[in-house]
C-alpha cells in the first residue's frame, strides 16, 4: 500500500514537471498540432474536390471528403504527439536530471508515468485544436453524445498505447535525433489504410495490408460521427 501511494505521489510530481515543461515550451504543443492541421488543409483544399467526387460520385465534394478524413487526421494527431513523447523521453535520458532521479528513493516508474500522462493531456489539447479547425472548415458530424464519448475514449486508449510504445522508442534511442525519427512510421500508417481513401481503390497487396494493419480499424468507429 505504502509503495503504491508513493508511486502515485511521485507520478503526480513528475506529471507536474511535464505540465510545466509544456507551459514553458508551448511551441512543442503547437508544432504537434500544426502538422495534422497542415495535412487537413492540404487534403481538404488541394485534393478535396477530386477526392470527394471519387468518394461519393458526382454529388460528392469537398465537404464529404472533410467528413471522411477527420478520423484519419485525428490518428495522425495522436501519432505526432507520440513522436513528441519519444523526443522528450530521449532528451530526459541524455540529461543528468534523470540520473539524479535514479539515485533518489522514488518510485522508478514515476518518471515514465509522468511522461505518459503528460502526453495524454498534450494529445487531448492537440485533438481539441484539430477538431476546432475541422469544425471551422465545415466538419459537421452527426454523432450523438454517446458516440462522441465513445470516440474520445477510443482515441484516449489508442493514445495511451502509442505513448507507451513511443516511450520505449525514446528509451532505446541513442540520441534525440533518432528519437524524433523512430516514431515516424506511426504518423504515416494512417495513410496506408482507410483513413484517406476507401481501401477498395487500392491494388490488391496494399489493400490486404491496409485492411489488416491496426490503424484504420481504430479510426473507423469514428466515421460514424
Amino acid at each position: 500500500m505504502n509503495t503504491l501511494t508513493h508511486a502515485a505521489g511521485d507520478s503526480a510530481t513528475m506529471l507536474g514537471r511535464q505540465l510545466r515543461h509544456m507551459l514553458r515550451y508551448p511551441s512543442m504543443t503547437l508544432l504537434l498540432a500544426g502538422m495534422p492541421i497542415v495535412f487537413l488543409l492540404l487534403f481538404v483544399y488541394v485534393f478535396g474536390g477530386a477526392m470527394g467526387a471519387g468518394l461519393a460520385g458526382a454529388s460528392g465534394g469537398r465537404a464529404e471528403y472533410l467528413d471522411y478524413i477527420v478520423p484519419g487526421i485525428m490518428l495522425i494527431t495522436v501519432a505526432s504527439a507520440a513522436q513528441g513523447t519519444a523526443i522528450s523521453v530521449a532528451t530526459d535520458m541524455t540529461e543528468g536530471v534523470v540520473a539524479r532521479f535514479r539515485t533518489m528513493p522514488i518510485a522508478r516508474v514515476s518518471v515514465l508515468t509522468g511522461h505518459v500522462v503528460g502526453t495524454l493531456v498534450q494529445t487531448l489539447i492537440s485533438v481539441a485544436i484539430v477538431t476546432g479547425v475541422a469544425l471551422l472548415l465545415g466538419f459537421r458530424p452527426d454523432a450523438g453524445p454517446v458516440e462522441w464519448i465513445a470516440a474520445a475514449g477510443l482515441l484516449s486508449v489508442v493514445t495511451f498505447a502509442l505513448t507507451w510504445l513511443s516511450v520505449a522508442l525514446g528509451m532505446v534511442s541513442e540520441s534525440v535525433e533518432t528519437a524524433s525519427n523512430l516514431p515516424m512510421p506511426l504518423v504515416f500508417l494512417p495513410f496506408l489504410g482507410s483513413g484517406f481513401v476507401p481501401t477498395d481503390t487500392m491494388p490488391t497487396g496494399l489493400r490486404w495490408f491496409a485492411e489488416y494493419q491496426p490503424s484504420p480499424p481504430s479510426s473507423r468507429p469514428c466515421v460514424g460521427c
Partner: protein
Amino acid sequence: MTLHPPQAAITATGLRKSFGDHVVLDGIDLDIPAGTIFSLLGPNGAGKSTIVKILSTLISADSGQARVLGHDLAQDPDAVRTAIGVTGQYSAVDGLLTGEENLLLMANLHRLGRRRARRRTAELLERFDLVDAAKKAAATYSGGMRRRLDLAMTLVGDPRLIFLDEPTTGLDPRSRRGVWEIIRALVADGVTVFLTTQYLEEADRLADRIAVLDRGTLVAEGTPAELKRRVPGGHFRLRFAEAGDLESAARTLDGSRDDDALALQIPGDGGIESLRALLDRLDDESIKAEELSVHAPDLDDVFLALTGHPSADNNERKAASR
C-alpha cells in the same frame, strides 16, 4: 535501523566492473570513515565516475561487496538512496524549470510536505546565493550558478553522504573556490563527502584522505601530506631559443625534452636550493636558456611518482597532438 551510527560511511571490497572487454575497475577496496572528505584522484578514464555510479546505486558491480552508511548496496539500494545525495559530473538540473521549481521538485520527491518544502527551498536559495535567480529558468544560468543549484538540489533531502563527481570541472577559478567553501561547510555539519577530481590542488585543499586511481586500481592512499611525501615535487621547465641550446642542455641535465616547444623539464622540488643548483649548472656549462619556470607538483607528477608512467589522459593528449 542501527542504534549507533555506523563508523564507516563506505566500505567496499573487491569491486570489479568491465564494459565488454574493457576492464574499468579491477578490485577496488575502500574504507571511508563517516564525517570526512575522501577524495578519489585520477585522470579521465581512470574509473572515478564508475565507482561513483556503483556506490550511488546507478549501476551494479560485476563482483565485490559494498556497504554504504551500513546498508548493503545490492540488498537494500533504496535505504542507500534515502541517505545519499549525488552531484554528477554533468549538471543534473531541469533546464526548463526555474531554480525554485527545481528545488521544489526535489522537495516533493523527498515527500517533505508543502510547508517544509517551501521552507527548505527558501533556505537553500539563500544559502547558495540564488535568490535573485530563483524565478528564472535554469537553462539561462551561468556554469557556476548551475553547479550551485545542482549542489542545492543534492542537499534538499538532508543526505548523510554526498557524492561529488568532479564538482569543479569546467568552472572558473572564482566559482571553484565558491564550491570548495560549500564543501567545507557541509563537512562541518557532519556530512561525509566522497569527492572525485582530476586536480591534485583540489584534493589537497579539501580531503582528509586521498586515494589515487589509475587504470581501475588504487595505486596509493593516504593523507595529502603522506602522498606528497611520496611525490618528489614539481619540476623546473627551461625554454630555449634554439634547438642547439636544447641539445646541449639535454646532454648535461637530466630531464625530459619536448622538441616541439624547445623545452626541457627537470625534476626538482621547487625549493631555492635546487633552483640555485640548477642555475649554477647552467652557468658552468654556459647554456643559454630563454625562460625558466617553476611548477608545483601536479597530477602528472603524482602519477609519474606513483605509477612510473604519466597519466593516461596525458598520453592521449600527446598522441592526439602529434
